């Protein structure tokens, strides 16, 4: 189905559902359009009380037993439940009488206005807890600040995630260990970028194991009781002067100590009188010039053996030499290397001709402004420059001073945390627009997962970002960084693509499985999502599309002809393959992560779609159900059974059916795809029954019809859910009941924008939760 048609269908479906919403929004909040007695209660009585009223309490939900109207209205949890089920068409169950769409709208609107007390004129934008940079963001940020590709955060512990994402303010904690790593990482990073001292000489140690040649007894211990020699082979890492040290000791013979001759191949020769006993071996050193790539032998010989057993003093009878080790250190006295590109860039933050004091201030101020994502005041600058001053007072160079100040900038909480200052931060009634710098920061981390660039900061400084917001969003989305960051971080977590790393399909069951195939699957989905971002395609193509990205290996795997080479290319899906595939749910990546190592899992796949596409995940399984083993049903009357047949028991028991009726059919519809996403017509030789119906009644047979159902009937739910996820990701907090109007608004605007990706992004950025924040209420609790 091509995009035009997709858009038409989608628009149609959503418009119907939207009419009531559009109407109600025009009405000022002070007037309540619906009243409980005349509009809401009758609906509940007609459609819900059979199970949830008049003495009935299915699922623990009771709608009519509150002691007072006030209590009824205060039971927000209850109404959140009703809201969720009404909006998602989850209640009443499919086989019962259904309220009309108007009734549902009435309910939803009334709940928003009267229970949640949401006021369209004064939306509650919520607040985001102070977010620290996560690993990905830290790496990207320092890369952009310095113009490097270093990734120091790879050594940090993985970030905890919440609501499906690893950039949630409340969840990102800062342990002592992490803080220490920040300190170390910033120091090492700056040391790498701004080398302010000569490289330290390398030290190469040789122990007995490295000695070659012959001691007296033909071994390599370095003990020499007779004229002999031992040697080590030195491979100098660079040209230069080296210090060679031999750790040696000896024993006297007559009055004399052993003489050790040290010869450097093609180099100097030195002789030492080793005049210490072996037990307190000493260092004997000299210098030699060595060249890189020219390994040299360093040989130590014992040249004055002596043995007089008749000597009166037993300690002077036997002259021997012991060599305990050799150390080669160098090159010594190397110069400070010329500055790196990044180093020069830092120094160029101020013109060269300025006097030092001003120059240092300018460099540090410019850097700090970029790093802290806002202008730096005089007091702050003075304190940071204290590090420069200290380094200079200690005799350090200008560059070292700058480096010290920059490190302070990078370990400050002003860098690590994205603060959004507001007046009256503890007053939950106080709602503020976030300032231009906070807006730039949110925008940048949302679309590029990195710190605001020069252009965004300039707009913020001029106070024109909000005015030019649309233009800036366009600019950022057009840049390849947007597709890269959003694919890796948003799609990667929303669609759980990161779990592909963990997938472990059994090679015996799936001989086609390989590391290459895993990489291919991931790349297909990533490139597909990136296309939607870059080309501003309708997000409905995620549900079904007539194209995808393949290379030769994956194309063969899918049965798509005429794709050659390792490189990925955009491929149109036609004919038989088009019947089989199109959209995320038919990508091998998603089919694999929703399978078990040895077989498919209809339940997992159904759950994935409900949770990640439709936003209506089923509740967790009940605790005390006796569930017979799956494999017990593997054979019935001695005959093999398909997975679907084995799962029949899900329908037989009512307590299971209520949730499984939602999940299983979707999975059955996808049973043509095996545990690694390859097409199959049979399951272990048995024919497949891929028919089913969604909980809301729409029926299908096979993946093509399943996708058609999504496109014809579920775009509203899909877009709303994606909007919710995108809002969560962009804000760094989970959505709450008071965000529901914003989520719907985003979904509506996306629909109005032909469901295009950019339309959704803009709707998110322009939403109340993104533009505003309110004070904290926690102190009062």
């Amino acid at each position: 189905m091509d995009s035009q048609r997709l858009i038409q269908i989608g628009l149609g479906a959503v418009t119907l559902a939207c009419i009531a919403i559009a109407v109600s929004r025009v009405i000022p909040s002070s007037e309540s359009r619906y009243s409980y007695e005349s509009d809401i209660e009758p609906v509940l009585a007609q459609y819900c009380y059979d199970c949830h009223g008049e003495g009935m309490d299915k699922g623990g939900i009771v709608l009519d037993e509150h002691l007072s109207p006030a209590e009824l209205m205060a039971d927000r949890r209850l109404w959140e439940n009703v809201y969720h089920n009404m909006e998602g068409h989850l209640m009443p169950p499919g086989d019962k009488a259904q309220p009309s769409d108007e009734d549902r709208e009435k309910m939803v609107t009334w709940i928003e206005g009267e229970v949640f007390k949401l006021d369209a004129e004064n939306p509650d934008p919520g607040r985001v807890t102070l977010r620290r940079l996560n690993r990905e963001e830290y790496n990207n940020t320092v890369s952009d600040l310095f113009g490097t590709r270093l990734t120091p955060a790879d050594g940090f512990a993985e970030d905890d995630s919440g609501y499906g994402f690893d950039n949630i303010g409340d969840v990102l904690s800062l342990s002592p260990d992490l803080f220490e790593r920040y300190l170390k990482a910033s120091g090492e990073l700056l040391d790498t970028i701004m080398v302010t001292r000569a490289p330290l000489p390398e030290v190469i140690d040789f122990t007995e194991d490295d000695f070659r040649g012959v001691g007296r007894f033909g071994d390599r211990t370095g003990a020499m009781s007779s004229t002999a020699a031992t040697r080590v082979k030195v491979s100098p890492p660079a040209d230069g002067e080296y210090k060679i040290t031999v750790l040696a000791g000896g024993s006297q013979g007559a009055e004399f100590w052993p003489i050790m001759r040290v010869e450097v191949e093609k180099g100097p020769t030195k002789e030492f009188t080793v005049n210490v006993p072996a037990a307190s071996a000493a260092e004997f050193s000299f210098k030699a010039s060595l060249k890189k790539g020219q390994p040299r032998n360093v040989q130590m010989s014992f040249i004055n053996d002596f043995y007089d057993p008749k000597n009166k003093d037993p300690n002077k009878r036997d002259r021997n030499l012991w060599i305990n080790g050799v150390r080669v250190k160098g090159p010594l006295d190397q110069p400070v290397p010329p500055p790196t590109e990044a180093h020069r860039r830092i120094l160029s933050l101020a013109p060269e001709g300025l006097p030092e004091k001003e120059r240092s201030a300018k460099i540090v101020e410019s850097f700090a402004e970029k790093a802290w994502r806002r202008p730096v005041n005089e007091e702050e600058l003075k304190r940071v420059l204290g590090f420069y001053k200290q380094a200079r007072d200690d005799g350090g160079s200008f560059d070292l001073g700058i480096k010290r100040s920059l490190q302070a900038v990078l370990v400050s909480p002003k860098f690590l945390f994205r603060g959004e200052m507001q007046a009256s931060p503890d007053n939950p009634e106080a709602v503020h627009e976030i300032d231009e710098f906070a807006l730039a920061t949110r925008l940048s981390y949302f679309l590029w997962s990195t710190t605001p660039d020069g252009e965004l900061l300039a707009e913020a400084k001029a106070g024109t970002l909000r005015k030019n917001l649309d233009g800036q969003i366009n600019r950022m989305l057009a840049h390849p960084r947007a597709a890269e960051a959003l694919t890796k971080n948003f799609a990667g977590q929303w669609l759980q693509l990161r779990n592909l790393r963990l997938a472990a399909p059994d090679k015996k069951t799936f001989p086609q499985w390989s590391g290459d195939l895993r990489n291919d699957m991931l790349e297909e989905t990533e490139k597909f999502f990136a296309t939607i971002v870059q080309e501003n395609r309708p997000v409905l193509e995620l549900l079904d599309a007539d194209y995808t990205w393949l290379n030769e290996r994956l194309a063969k795997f899918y049965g798509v002809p005429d794709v050659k080479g390792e490189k990925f290319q955009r491929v149109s899906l036609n004919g038989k393959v088009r019947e089989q595939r199109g959209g995320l749910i038919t990508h091998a990546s998603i089919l694999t992560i929703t399978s078990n190592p040895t077989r498919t899992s209809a339940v997992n796949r159904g759950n994935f779609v409900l949770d990640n596409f439709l936003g209506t995940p089923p509740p967790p399984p009940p605790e005390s159900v006796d569930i017979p083993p799956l494999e017990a049903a593997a054979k019935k009357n001695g005959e093999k059974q398909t997975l679907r047949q084995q799962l029949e028991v899900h329908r037989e028991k009512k307590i299971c059916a209520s949730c499984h009726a939602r999940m299983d059919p979707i999975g059955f519809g996808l049973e043509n795809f095996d545990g690694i996403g390859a097409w199959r017509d049979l399951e272990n030789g048995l024919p497949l029954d891929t028919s089913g119906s969604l909980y809301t009644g729409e029926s299908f047979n096979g993946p093509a019809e399943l996708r058609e159902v999504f496109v014809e009937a579920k775009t509203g739910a899909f877009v709303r859910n994606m909007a919710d996820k995108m809002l969560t990701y962009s804000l760094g907090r989970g959505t709450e009941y008071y965000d529901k109007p914003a989520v719907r608004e985003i979904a509506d605007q996306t629909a109005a924008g032909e469901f295009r990706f950019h339309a959704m992004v803009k709707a998110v950025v322009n939403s109340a939760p993104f533009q505003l924040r309110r004070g904290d209420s926690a102190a009062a609790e």
Partner: protein
Amino acid sequence: MRFSTLSRRTALRGLGASLALPTLDAMIPTGLRAADAVASPLRMAYVYLPNGVIIPKWNPTGEGKNWKPGKTLQSLEKVRNHVQVVSGLKQEKAQANGDGGGDHARATATFLTGTQARKTAGADIQAGISVDQIAASQLSGQTRLDSLQLGCDTVRKAGSCDSGYSCAYQFNFSWKSPTLPLAPEVNPRLVFEKLFGVEGTGEDVKSRELRMRHERSLLDYVLDDAKSMQKKLGYTDRLKIDEYLSAIRELEKKIESAEKFQASLPDSGSRPEGIPADYREHIAVMYDLLALAFQTDTTRIATFLVAHDGSNRSFPDIGVPEGHHHLSHHRRDQAKMDKLQKIDQFYVELFSGFLEKLKNTKEPDGSSLLDSSMIVFGGGIGDGDRHNHDDLPVILAGGGNGKLRTGRYLKAKEPVPMTNMYLSLLDKAGAKADRLGDSTGRFDLI
């Protein structure tokens, strides 16, 4: 006298090769162990086993000193006189208690804390202080590192975790405070660096002094920055800055410790290169590093989250290609239970290898490292199918400097909160606590 610092060239050995433990004499920093010259210091460690076990194959036959290990615990036979197999321990706070699904998140979160983890996918996560951190804060300052957190889960799951619980509950084991988990380090190379520092860079005394002074100035500076930032923030945000401030204080303490206790680089040990590709090797290297940390007295308190509860890892090398978690819902299917038993055995074998290493490591007073340790090995789920949190599989290893009655199968007559046992262990370690999580007293039978 020998050259004692390793150079890059001589130190690099193969990937994840089992570390050679250095001889002890070379390790003792002079003057350091003066206070403990009489007895070896007491070490404690907690090691996690996910997804429950096949209980009938886990439980030994026989009683008391006459216990005989079954197939799963067979490898413990070599150290039978140094361990106690304990049964009858429970973690009531790992039960739903009204919160619905999420046993795996709860199992990991309660194992060391005994508290009901707050059910939240993100905002305001809360568990409790873990037993190892109670010990670490009371015994702080006696070693270079107050405590060590190890793990082998190299990749965290994306998306949501167990039934509405934040992933923080499953992938962290130690909790410094009810709201601050301590992430386990999974890279052996980084563990090594944490213990022994990055190899000597030939820094001279003057540059070292300057560097340390700079570090202290940095800490003072960020302390001020944080305090001034905090004044302008709302309540929840101020708590985040509190984490930052605590971290600064911890680092200040650690710098002091580092100056008191020089890092004792092992003489002949080899520095691990990174994370081994083979799982068995990864676990083994971590155990080796733990033994090394104890032996060098770099720390005396450690936790090791071998795998998070809910782990769905497959074990093709031992003939189990299916995922662990998936299998653990065995529904009494014999084939599945047999495979699970193999996984249980796999984990126990690696633990036994660790205990053997400790046994073979001699302390200056002649005893072994195992004699002076108290190690808890177990999981927060009993039977993976039932998801029950009582009758937990637990092994208490080590002599605790004579304070533990080793070499037997100890069956509690009535179910006992595991936290009671922790209080007893804390007593023995000299880190008394009145309560821990849901404790009701002590369990001094151990």
